[in-house]
């Protein structure tokens, strides 16, 4: 890679350092190529921007607040700001991307939307924008996840989406993604695939990161208003595929003074065999259309990860993050199921905010940083915890 290349933008072929690209069968080539040729042009159109910004403001509820968390700041002896993506419509950052992609899909003349979902957050965000625009919506979801996430399945159905169970392989997110890709192969002309994270073949990682970059764009001016300076000392976010992290880091990646902290899910513990900490356990490989770090066996078969939070339960990581890890630009930490749970309860008690379990991982990592009163830490509060109540209730009952 060219030394001067930014951490933000991939090469024309979609590479962040060694990671990225488009490893797809020929059956997907035309659709992916069409997207690659047109996404930037469409996203830069004045009319697209006007409609996108309007929806972000009036429908999603942006800008989301940057909240100075006083009691947590005192506890960690620092200045902690929470970027409140949990206050977005549908309860998480996911909708920043689906609003953008539905507008893009309509401009490409697509009539049918497909998506994959794990916990159901991206599925709900996709079903929501499809309802808004009156477009047919099909969501693939692992059979196991359908059982585990009944409320989100009900939300998608109420919004008019068809939820199709993925019954192959491990019947979770990875397999739902395979099924969505297959659907796209079988419906090559009228369908757009809304991927929910910064994964997949180029241009998806870059496109999703751009749609999520609104998070860090707002953070800059909000922090300036509150502290007189645009730049935090640290930005902290949890990483599964990595979409909220990509958005929270985006406008700080080329600011060397800002420490980039990504927190992965360690599950039962890194060495327990039940973990989803891809940068610690993965090797370079190809999954779902891009070259990145992938959790796999010695024989190159993709393995099933484990995390208590379905949103982090993915055996890969976006190529942008793989590059941040390998180049050392990002610091990658991890939190176990137990640490994430404990952190979520602490945030609920101290700040009156029930975070998603995914975000609990980001909070759990604050303990691992040596913070001071001179620091300005921004943590991306990626989603609210309503969807995790069943898990939280088990802890309270125990």
């Amino acid at each position, binding site marked *: 890679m060219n030394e001067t290349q930014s951490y933000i933008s991939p090469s024309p072929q979609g590479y962040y350092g060694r990671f990225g690209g488009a490893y797809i069968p020929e*059956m997907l080539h035309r659709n992916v190529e069409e997207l690659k040729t047109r996404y930037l042009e469409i996203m830069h159109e004045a009319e697209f921007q006007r409609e996108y910004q309007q929806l972000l403001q009036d429908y999603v509820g942006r800008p989301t607040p940057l909240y100075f968390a006083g009691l947590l700041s005192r506890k960690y002896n620092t200045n902690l700001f929470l970027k409140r993506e949990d206050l977005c419509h549908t309860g998480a950052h996911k909708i920043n991307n689906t609003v953008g992609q539905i507008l893009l899909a309509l401009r490409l003349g697509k009539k049918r939307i497909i998506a994959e979902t794990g916990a159901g957050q991206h599925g709900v965000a996709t079903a929501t924008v499809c309802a808004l625009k009156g477009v047919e919506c099909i969501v693939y979801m692992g059979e196991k996840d359908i059982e585990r996430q009944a409320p989100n399945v009900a939300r998608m159905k109420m919004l008019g989406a068809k939820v199709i169970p993925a019954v192959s392989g491990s019947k979770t997110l990875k397999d739902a993604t395979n099924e969505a890709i297959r659907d796209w192969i079988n419906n090559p002309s009228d369908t757009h695939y809304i991927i929910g994270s910064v994964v997949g073949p180029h241009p998806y990682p870059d496109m999703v990161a751009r749609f999520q970059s609104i998070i860090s764009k707002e953070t800059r001016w909000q922090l300036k208003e509150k502290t007189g300076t645009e730049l935090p000392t640290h930005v902290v976010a949890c990483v599964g595929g990595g979409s909220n992290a990509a958005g929270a880091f985006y406008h700080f990646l080329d600011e060397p003074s800002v420490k980039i902290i990504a927190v992965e899910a360690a599950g039962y513990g890194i060495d327990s065999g039940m973990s989803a900490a891809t940068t610690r356990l993965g090797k370079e490989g190809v*999954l779902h259309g891009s070259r990145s770090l992938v959790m796999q066996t010695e024989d190159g078969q993709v393995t099933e990860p484990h995390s208590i939070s379905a949103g982090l339960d993915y055996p890969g990581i976006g190529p942008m993050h793989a590059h941040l890890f390998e180049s050392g630009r990002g610091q990658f930490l991890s939190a176990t199921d137990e640490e994430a749970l404990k952190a979520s309860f602490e945030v609920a008690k101290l700040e009156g905010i029930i975070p998603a379990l995914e975000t609990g991982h980001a909070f759990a990592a604050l303990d691992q940083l040596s913070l001071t009163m001179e620091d300005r830490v921004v943590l991306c509060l990626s989603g609210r915890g309503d969807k995790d109540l069943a898990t939280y209730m088990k802890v309270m009952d125990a």
Partner: protein
Amino acid sequence: MSRLNNLFQQKNKRILNVYCTAGYPTLQSTINVMRSLQENGADLIELGMPYSDPLADGPVIQASSSKALQNGMTIPTLFAQLKDFRKDITVPVILMGYLNPLLQYGFEKFCAKAAEVGIDGIIIPDIPMYEFEQEYRAIIEKYGLDFIFLVTPETSEERIIKLDQLSSGFLYAVSSSSITGSDKDFSPVETYLHKLQSLKLKNPVLVGFGIKDKATFETACKYANGAIIGSAYIKALESDDNVEMATREFLNGILN
């Protein structure tokens, strides 16, 4: 001359290429399946290396891959099984698989080993064209293997010509899914296969996806040098414990 070129020189019509999954239905059945295919009239064998996330395959082949992986199939195990297969299997054999397991095994090591045991060519549907040209083409040529690209009804003419130039052995024409049912309109596929014929490609063309019986095989053969059967054969193996019997019956149904 390569076995594939030799085959197409001797016979350029009604070529029957049958796909089977290594290690399916049982770990040790690989060679038996291949032998049965040869004995019952397959001109060419496409041997699939099972992968956990086979994006370009349908549910039937994915299920056979999962079973093969459960049975313990790996690339080293496959090469051990293929060590002496050229003693009695003379038809061309190509390996089909996905890039990730090959990267872990080592791409050059894989090609060297494949050539050593007598494999003729490879299909890896998720290799990007630019990476093939920059990295893999020279290695594949070094070991005298053929490499087969796929084209689809969505592939532009310009790109078909380029993929044909980069391929050797044959070109794999993915039919649209509409070829599977006699009740569906075949005309778009017809137009597409006509277009392929008119492009005067350097490689013979075999049509795959949706070829499941005598009727679809005959139709495909009208417009191309032959066809590839995958899922329908895997289904036949699924429903019969006796590999020889199942294979004989299935191929009889196609060819006679």
